[in-house]
């Protein structure tokens, strides 16, 4: 790992910790970092502080970190597979699939008595199924998948699944309200139950993804060269795709279809540390976690005065709305750069 990568990792982790403390402090009840630390150490000034920090904000922050890392790693994997720094986790069809299955389940009588566990599992299954479909669709006549086909299939399958979701919602429109925030991505109401549903997948998938760095490096060199080194190109690509799908699906199952952080994080990491996957993978996990936590902090801080409110109150944005807004400066940044 080169020097720059180490610097990036270190500073990223530091930034992450600062942001987490900030994250634990913002909300309806503002807490100073001191109060935050005391609450974490179980010496809170008020029981309300302890309750808020331990029951609400701490799991939310931890889920944000892990979901961000998952998305960042998934994005980095996909960028390596597609050999293009503009790929993002949504291309696997995972987000659309997760939402579609969630909607199907909700409207076909799935009970919401224990939403945290079951909904997450359903969404995970949906995400994986959708990415499987994408791979199937992407198989060319000779049975191999090339990046263009993959991307195209991903875009089309996502679009078709979104339409199917809209169709189901229109027939059973009670669920629209709760699904809407899922479609943008939100960390609201994520507590320990959601963490428990998330961390096993993360504990498995993150290390596996990180270990793929070597293979990813080979694939990035191009199919002929990779084959020359002895990498079974097709199988490697599919395996990496499967891992990326798992990473992304677990994230989507936890927080919904959050966009853009999976694109911006890895892209920025690449700019900072170069193309070596062994540097990029951990770097993008950390940086994307930073982005997601930062976006959530922003989402909680922003006080809106909706035009139709008679009394001003503290409106909250779902984190996905903030990450979507991040897209704007990102595209401006892409515009400025001379073509890569």
């Amino acid at each position, binding site marked *: 790992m080169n020097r720059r990568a180490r610097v990036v990792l270190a500073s990223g982790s530091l930034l992450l910790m600062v942001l987490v403390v900030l994250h634990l402090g913002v909300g309806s009840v503002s807490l100073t970092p001191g109060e935050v630390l005391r609450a974490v150490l179980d010496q809170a000034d008020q029981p309300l502080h302890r309750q808020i920090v331990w029951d609400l904000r701490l799991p939310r922050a931890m889920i944000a970190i892990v979901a961000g890392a998952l998305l960042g790693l998934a994005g980095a994997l996909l960028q390596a597979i597609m050999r293009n720094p503009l790929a993002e986790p949504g291309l696997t069809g995972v987000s659309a699939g997760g939402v579609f299955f969630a909607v199907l389940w909700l409207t076909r009588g799935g009970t919401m008595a224990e939403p945290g566990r079951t909904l997450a599992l359903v969404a995970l299954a949906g995400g994986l199924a959708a990415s499987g479909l994408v791979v199937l669709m992407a198989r060319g006549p000779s049975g191999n998948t090339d990046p263009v*086909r993959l991307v195209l299939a991903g*875009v089309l399958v996502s679009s078709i699944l*979104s339409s199917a979701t*809209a169709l189901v919602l*229109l027939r059973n429109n009670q669920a*629209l309200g709760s699904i*809407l925030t899922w479609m943008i991505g939100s960390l609201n109401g994520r507590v320990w139950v959601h963490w428990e549903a998330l961390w096993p997948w993360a504990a498995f998938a993150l290390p596996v993804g990180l270990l793929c760095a070597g293979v990813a490096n080979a694939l990035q060199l191009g199919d002929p060269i990779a084959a020359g080194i002895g990498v079974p190109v097709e199988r490697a690509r599919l395996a990496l795709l499967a891992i990326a799908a798992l990473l992304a699906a677990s994230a989507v199952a936890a927080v919904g279809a959050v966009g853009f952080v999976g694109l911006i994080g890895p892209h920025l990491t690449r700019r900072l540390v170069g193309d070596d996957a062994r540097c990029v993978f951990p770097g993008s996990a950390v940086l994307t976690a930073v982005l997601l936590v930062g976006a959530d902090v922003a989402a909680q801080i922003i006080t809106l005065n909706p035009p139709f409110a008679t009394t001003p109150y503290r409106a909250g944005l779902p984190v996905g709305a903030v990450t979507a807004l991040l*897209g704007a400066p990102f595209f401006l940044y892409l515009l400025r750069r001379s*073509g890569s």
Partner: protein
Amino acid sequence: MIAQPRHALRALALTVTLLLGLLVIGMLALQQGTPTLTPGQLGAILFAGEGERLTRIVVLELRLPRLALGIASGALLALSGVILQDTLRNPLAGPELLGITGGAAVIVGAITIFRLPAPAALVPWFTLAGGLAGGLVVLLAAQSMRSTLRLILVGASVTAFLNALLIGMISLATQNDVNLLFLFLVGSLANRTWAHLAIVLPWALLGVPAALLCARLLNVLQLGDDLAAGLGLAVAPVRLLLLVIGAALVAAVVAVCGPIGWVALLAPHLARRLLATPNAAYVLPIAALIGAALLTSADLLARLVLAPTELPVGIWTTLLGGPLLLILLRSHVGVRHE
């Protein structure tokens, strides 16, 4: 792409078939619904000025303008697709994937959700601005228009961004509005009257001939940038002009109907397959007819399948058009372009 007699014959045969098909679809569209009419009754209403008042109103004020709007919109969308695909020499260029539809939809969405006081006739100009902005962002960010991969990626990202903006705006609305506005994301022809057609018509009357006239330019561009320049064509300005025309063709459609997807991508491919030639002089009009047929038949489904509930036509075009496009493209991508 020298025009050969057999291409012309094929084009003629296709034109006749498609026109007949449109006629059949049109008749079905006018007959079916509440109330369902027999052909005799329909003829009496259309040509003899008879029929009871309510039925006349339903046919003449509801179904007929909706049918006309479907034909016009389908044609405009298809033409836009042909122009964009040939200009960028990319089979996946289309107003949806280039962010044009998304940009236009955000503008219309904002106007609808926030009830901005924009006169209905001017809205297409705003959507044109939005569509051009979206398209330009994608094109400039993609830098190299010939790289299919980069184009789709950037286009998908920009479209996702614009969609997220829309959904964000929608989630600010009240409970009642949310469902109705969500439908807007999909595109619909429901309940459009002559007033709505009047907004689209000028754009169609100018746009369709303009598009057809571009055939020669498109054919030259298909040869490749160097050859085109060698033949005396100022490639970059012409390309920009064609992109503006492509955006302008869909601006009015999105303003009135919302973002209807996949017709613009699908129709050109079907046209090229059926004609067995990429000659734009034939592809343009055939694609327009195919687009009109696709949209009107999808609208028929939307109106009738779950009557009296209506589903927005955009859902059908995506559900049916998406897989179809996927199948069509499996043999194209990687072989013909890039």
